[in-house]
């Protein structure tokens, strides 16, 4: 899902994929220090921290939310980040299913 800026995402926005059954969420933002707005990165990082906290409160692994920063063109980075997060999610899913058994 494309958003104008990841700093627009609220904690509730970050949790919404999980409400419909998603196993994980990958947020891909701009490269570090490239934002025109000096506090935007801090804000999104804080909201991600809070969303991870909510997941932890209800017994889900906070690692299910990943935040990546693009290093060059955004589209060129997506595939690589997606694959990294998918591998991590796969490990989390396996461990979670193991615990449930």
């Amino acid at each position, binding site marked *: 899902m494309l958003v104008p800026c990841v700093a627009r995402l*609220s*904690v*509730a926005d970050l*949790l*919404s994929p*999980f*409400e419909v*059954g998603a196993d994980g969420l990958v947020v891909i933002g701009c490269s570090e220090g490239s934002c025109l707005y000096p506090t935007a990165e801090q804000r999104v990082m804080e909201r991600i921290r*809070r969303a991870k906290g*909510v*997941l932890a*409160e*209800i*017994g*889900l692994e906070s690692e299910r939310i990943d935040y990546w920063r693009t290093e060059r063109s955004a589209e060129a980075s997506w595939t690589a980040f997606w694959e990294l997060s998918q591998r991590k999610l796969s490990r989390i899913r396996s461990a979670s299913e193991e615990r449930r058994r």
Partner: protein
Amino acid sequence: MIVAERKPLAEIRGFVDDYRRILILGCGTCATVCLAGGEAEVKVVAAGLRISFLRDEKEVEILEDCVTRQCEPEFVADLPRKVQDEGVGAVVSLGCGVGVNFLAQTLETVPVFPGVNTEFFGAAVEPGVWLEMCAGCGNCILHLTGGICPIARCSKSILNGPCGGSRDGKCEINPEVECGWALIVERMKKLGTLDRLAEILPPRDWSTSHHGGPRKVIHPEAAPAAIGQGKAEQ
């Protein structure tokens, strides 16, 4: 304002585990300002509960709403009908304890659970930080103490301080807690009224505080018919 903090989601989930349709109700006044129970927090609590129930494969519907104030009749007047029409089995209030009490009396047969812990009357001393400044004791003596409250801001609520536990402006209970009486002394130095502290304050009558039981204030113009039922505002 009244300062509150959201309860852990697991605790809230425990309250509503047996219900199939739950309303999360925020409050647009104090609970919103202290980031505990406004619209944004309603969405987060609702999302957390939905995810939690989904993981347990329980079909539960979570409704969301936020009223301007949970502690005044006109803002919750429509709530009983809404709750009935929508088949709400339980309400989680993200308002302060006053809101929960008021909703409980308004909704009568529908359970209302607290979604926040109500902490104190305080001020936002910096973004995201609130500090207790009033104990609501019903007999204000701030005119004697430079505007700094010894009841709320001294750990012992002593009237003639500081005590021997005051060190470098901090309280003995915790080095991060300011000594209320050190604040009073510094403030009165600035005002040039420090000599007034030489006067010993007598023991006070705590019946104006909660020690005298639940209190009531009746405004003579707003509620003339109620005069005689409680303490009239001066």
